């Protein structure tokens, strides 16, 4: 072997080593008598476009809760750790938070892999973990247990919401492009299974599985163009979907087939695309600016203004509300409510309350915390991309459907868990 290939191999090993070596940084000052929640999320690098607005929402709710007297007469305090998007990093942080910081609960996650890893640790350590931002359905379904609660919607609910809307389209020949990893596969399978259930004559004519983070999609685009599909689903997200859309437009792909992307309606994708946004695409969106949504949820406008003021004073470059901000906000309130109902911070007592389930009203509608799987069920929105004023794209024609009309039943969840237990 030559020096070059040795160097190549060594550098990869070294990358792994360095990632493993980076330990938790900093230590929060313990606050006497506060209810302390160790919050682990990705606060550096690529995921910050989601986690920063989420954290603002979380902090806004925490301030409101504490200003109103806290929970059980005690302040709520979040201690944040950066997981650098790595499951082992997150588990290390979880252990440190539980053993050294003596936190009462764990919370956080944007990566599904991180969420599942913290959940496994929580199960062993018998610490209650609130998954606040990642979305894999496996958290509370096949890998669910009493020490994990999921305070945001899961993949299944919004995949089904989009499939329901897609089932009203006249198209039967479908293709898709989804990133080739856990989330992308989960999302596509949920979407396709539900679409086929609602509209049995659909057929899959072609599939594309680029790797997560692929930057050049032209071969996939030309393959899609020739597939004869009338419509195609996209499970891409964030920067990768922006790249895909920018590359697909000049090929004329969006004119040739109906585009049904799962997350394009989020402003982190739509805003940068600007005039290049694919008008007519059907997608999911938290369209707080939409007149119909405002009318349906009269309290939403005031919350939006409050959030914008809050995010602006915290120096957010883009202070407009994002879906993640609503999740951070709702998560803090759901955690507080669970503790309040349990009248204790004991994980088993709070878990018992969660297993009974409860409902909460938020400015954007009812969020059900379902007892059987400790899974949040919020409203879901789908819409159509339109060009707004001055080349700023929006999502319009919003249809709202509550997750409770889409989600798998408690019986189905029990079957999933039984199947998972058998496979072990």
């Amino acid at each position, binding site marked *: 072997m030559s020096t070059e290939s040795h160097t190549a191999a060594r550098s990869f090993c070294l990358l792994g080593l360095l990632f493993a070596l980076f330990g938790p940084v900093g230590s929060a000052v313990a606050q006497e008598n506060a209810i302390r929640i160790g919050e682990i999320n990705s606060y550096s690098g690529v995921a910050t476009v989601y986690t920063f607005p989420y954290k603002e929402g979380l902090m806004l709710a925490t301030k409101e809760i504490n200003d109103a007297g806290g929970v059980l007469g005690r302040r709520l305090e979040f201690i944040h750790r950066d997981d650098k998007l790595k499951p082992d990093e997150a588990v290390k942080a979880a252990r440190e938070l539980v053993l050294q910081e003596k936190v009462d609960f764990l919370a956080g996650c944007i990566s599904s892999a991180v969420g599942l890893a913290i959940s496994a640790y929580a199960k062993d350590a018998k610490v209650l973990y609130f998954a606040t931002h990642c979305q894999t359905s496996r958290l509370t379904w096949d890998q669910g247990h009493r020490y994990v609660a999921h305070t945001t919607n899961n993949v299944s609910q919004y995949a089904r919401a989009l499939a329901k809307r897609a089932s009203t389209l006249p198209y039967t020949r479908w293709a898709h492009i989804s990133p080739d990893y856990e989330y992308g596969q989960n999302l596509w399978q949920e979407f396709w299974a539900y679409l086929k259930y609602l509209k049995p004559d659909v057929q899959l004519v072609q599939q594309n599985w680029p790797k997560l983070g692929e930057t*050049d999609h032209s071969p996939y685009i030309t393959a899609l163009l020739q597939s004869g599909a009338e419509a195609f689903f996209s499970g891409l997200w*964030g*920067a990768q979907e922006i790249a895909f859309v920018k590359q697909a437009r000049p090929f004329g792909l969006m004119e040739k087939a109906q585009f049904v992307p799962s997350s394009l309606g989020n402003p982190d994708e739509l805003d940068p695309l600007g005039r290049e946004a694919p008008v007519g695409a059907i997608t999911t969106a938290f369209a707080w600016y939409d007149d119909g949504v405002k009318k349906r949820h009269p309290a939403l406008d005031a919350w939006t203004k409050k959030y914008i003021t809050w995010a602006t004073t915290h120096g957010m470059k883009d202070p407009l509300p994002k879906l993640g901000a609503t999740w951070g906000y709702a998560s803090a309130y759901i955690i507080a409510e669970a503790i309040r109902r349990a009248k204790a911070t004991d994980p088993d007592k709070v878990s018992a309350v969660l297993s009974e389930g409860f409902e909460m009203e938020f400015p954007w509608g009812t969020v059900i915390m379902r007892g059987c799987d400790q899974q949040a069920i919020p409203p879901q929105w789908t819409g159509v991309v339109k060009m707004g004023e001055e080349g700023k794209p929006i999502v319009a024609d919003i249809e709202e459907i509550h997750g409770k009309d889409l989600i798998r039943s408690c019986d189905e969840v029990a079957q999933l868990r039984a199947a998972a237990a058998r496979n072990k």
Partner: protein
Amino acid sequence: MEMTTSLFPWITNSPLIAVQVMSGLSVGMFLFLLSVGMSLIFGVTRIVNLAHGSFYMVGAYLMAALIEVLPGNPVSFWIALLLAPIGVAVLGGVIEITLLRRVYRRDPMMQLILTFALILIIGTLVLLVWGPDNKSVARPEALAGSVRILGQPFPSYYLLVLGLSPLVAVGLWLVFYRTRWGMLVRAATVDREMLGALGVDVSRLYTQVFAFGSWLAGLGGALAAPTVAVALGMDADVLINAFVVVVIGGLGSFAGTLISALVVGELQSFGILIFPGVSIVLPFALMAVVLMIRPWGLLGEPEE
């Protein structure tokens, strides 16, 4: 043949094959621009620059920032395309003088740790300066649409890339094989001490090479910016690709990098049609095969 056509209906579809060849070609050309600087820096300084993807990212961010600042007329795009890589070259030069110069004689492990640290530092600085939000660069008006190739639309912006990359390849060859500077650089790769003894300022030469390699990374990033999202994480996304291309082609070989980039591009392009489920494995499989048969890469040179 009949079975083949029923299995692979595209075989009889020549416009599809043509467009697929073209898109593979454009993938390959982007890959070449991305990786050739990394290969160059290794060839001369023997440093595997893990921060190469970070320079590429800075090139894209500078491109986005310049286009935002410059007045919105058609010339701005080209001015930004000219300036952004120069900015990256300056950054590369400064980093070479202040940091890398100290580790040339150290263990390769130290060099890797240093360039790895640069990934983290540059990534964090980009987040601090430009914030977490994704950015997008519009294509210049004249290249925003598409041209028709055998009746199939093909993005005209890619024609720019298809034209520019061979120019860069030829330019590199001319610089390194037809100028005195290129001759000195090649001499430095063979025997640094001897060249120094002959009175050549080798340190300065290394700085120039590193800045030049960074310029190439910046050019790759600036040119790719209109076709992707300018976003955090693009450094890591492209680094692996660059690595695969450079290892297949042979570290330090321009022609190897060019051939390898084109092979990987076409492999990806047709892999998608033939093995849609596993196409992303193909470049890595090729790298593994090359490492087994020719560990020094297609056109690299084995070391004693």
